[in-house]
C-alpha cells in the first residue's frame, strides 16, 4: 500500500510537472502525493496541523498584547543577562537561537549520511542534534527559573500586563515540549540506526523495511519544524 507504483523495470512512470502535474496528481484515483512515501506525507500533514496550533497560540498572544491598555514588559530588558557587569539585551535568547539552528544543521547532514547508509556518522550526527536540543531545553529551564524567581506567573508579572506571563509560559512551554519529545525520538532512532535495525529488519517501530533510512529524514522534518517554529517565536515574541 505504501509503495509507489513502479513499472517492471523498477522505475517510476514519468509524471507531469508544474500546474498540470498538480492537477493530474490530485485528480487521479490514486494517492495524491505520487512519489512521496506515506510516512513523509503523514509527517508533513501532522506538521501542518501543528502549524495551526502554534499559529493559534501566537495569534492569541498578539490579540492579548494589542488589546491590553496596560504596558507590555519589554522583552529586550526582561531577557537581558548580566555579563561582566554589563546588561546585554536578549543575549540568552540569541544563544538559544544559534544552538537550535546548529542542531538543524547537524540534523540535515544526518539525513544525508542516512541515505548513504553511513550508520555511524548518521547516528553520531543525530546524537549531536539531540545534545544541542537538550542544551536548548536546559537553557529554557534556566530562563523559566529566572523569570519565576523574579515573580512572573501565568496570571501576572512585576512589569505590567499580566497576559505576558500566560503567553510566555504557554508558547515557550509548548515549544520546549516539542523539543523534548524530539530529543527523545532522536536518541531512539539514533540507537536503531547505530545497531543496524534498518538493515536487518529487526522488529520494532519503523524498522520493518530493509535498508530503508527514510525515517531519518522524517525525524529530520519534525526537528527542522521545531527550529522553524522557534524562528517565528523569536521574531514575534522576543523581538516585538
Amino acid at each position, binding site marked *: 500500500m505504501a509503495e509507489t507504483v513502479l513499472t517492471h523495470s523498477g522505475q517510476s512512470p514519468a509524471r507531469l510537472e508544474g500546474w498540470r502535474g498538480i492537477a493530474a496528481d490530485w485528480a487521479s484515483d490514486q494517492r495524491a502525493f505520487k512519489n512521496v512515501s506515506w510516512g513523509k506525507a503523514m509527517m508533513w500533514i501532522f506538521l501542518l496541523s501543528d502549524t495551526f496550533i502554534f499559529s493559534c497560540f501566537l495569534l492569541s498572544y498578539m490579540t492579548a498584547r494589542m488589546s491590553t491598555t496596560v504596558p507590555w514588559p519589554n522583552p529586550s530588558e526582561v531577557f537581558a543577562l548580566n555579563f561582566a557587569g554589563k546588561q546585554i539585551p536578549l543575549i540568552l535568547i540569541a544563544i538559544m537561537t*544559534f544552538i537550535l539552528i546548529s542542531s538543524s544543521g547537524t540534523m*540535515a547532514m544526518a539525513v544525508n549520511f542516512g541515505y548513504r547508509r553511513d550508520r555511524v556518522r548518521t547516528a553520531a550526527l543525530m546524537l549531536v542534534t539531540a545534545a544541542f536540543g537538550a542544551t536548548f531545553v536546559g537553557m529554557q529551564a534556566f530562563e523559566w527559573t529566572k523569570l519565576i524567581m523574579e515573580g512572573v506567573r501565568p496570571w501576572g508579572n512585576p512589569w505590567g500586563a499580566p497576559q505576558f506571563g500566560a503567553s510566555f509560559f504557554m508558547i515557550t512551554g509548548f515549544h520546549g515540549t516539542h523539543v523534548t519529545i524530539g530529543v527523545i525520538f532522536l536518541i531512539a532512532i539514533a540507537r536503531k540506526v547505530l545497531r543496524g535495525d534498518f538493515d536487518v529488519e529487526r522488529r520494532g517501530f519503523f524498522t520493518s523495511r530493509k535498508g530503508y533510512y527514510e525515517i531519518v529524514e522524517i525525524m529530520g522534518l519534525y526537528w527542522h519544524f521545531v527550529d522553524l517554529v522557534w524562528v517565528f517565536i523569536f521574531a514575534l515574541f522576543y523581538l516585538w
Partner: protein
Amino acid sequence: MTNATVHMEGQLHAPAHGAVATAAVHAKGQQHPIKLYLVVWGWLFVLSTCSYLVDYFGLQGYLRWSLILLFMMLKAGLIVAVFMHMAWERLALAYAILLPPIAVLVFVSIMVLESEYTHLLRVLFFATPS
C-alpha cells in the same frame, strides 16, 4: 526513495559504511551535497545575527518591523526549502502544505482589527488615566 530501496536490496550484506555509498545507492532519496547544508547553516547564522542586531541597536518603528519580518521569512524559507527538502518535493505536496498556512494570514488580519477595536473600547470606557 522507493527506487533506492529496490537498488539497495542487493547490497545488504556489505558493511553499512561510507564505502558502500555507491552512485547507485544515492541516486535517489534527497541526496544533496553537504556543502549546500553548510551554506544554508551559515546564512541562518547571519540572518539570526541580523535579527538580534535589530534589537541590540534598538531600531524602532516600521524599520524595525520590516527588518524583523524580512529576516524571519528568509530564515523560514531557507529551513523549509533546503533543510526540509520542500524545494525538491512534488508540487502537489508543496502546495498542499504551503498554501493552508497562508489562510492563517486572513485570521491574523481579522484578529488585528478585533484587537484594535477591543483596545479602543477599553481606552474609552475602562482605562484609568495614569
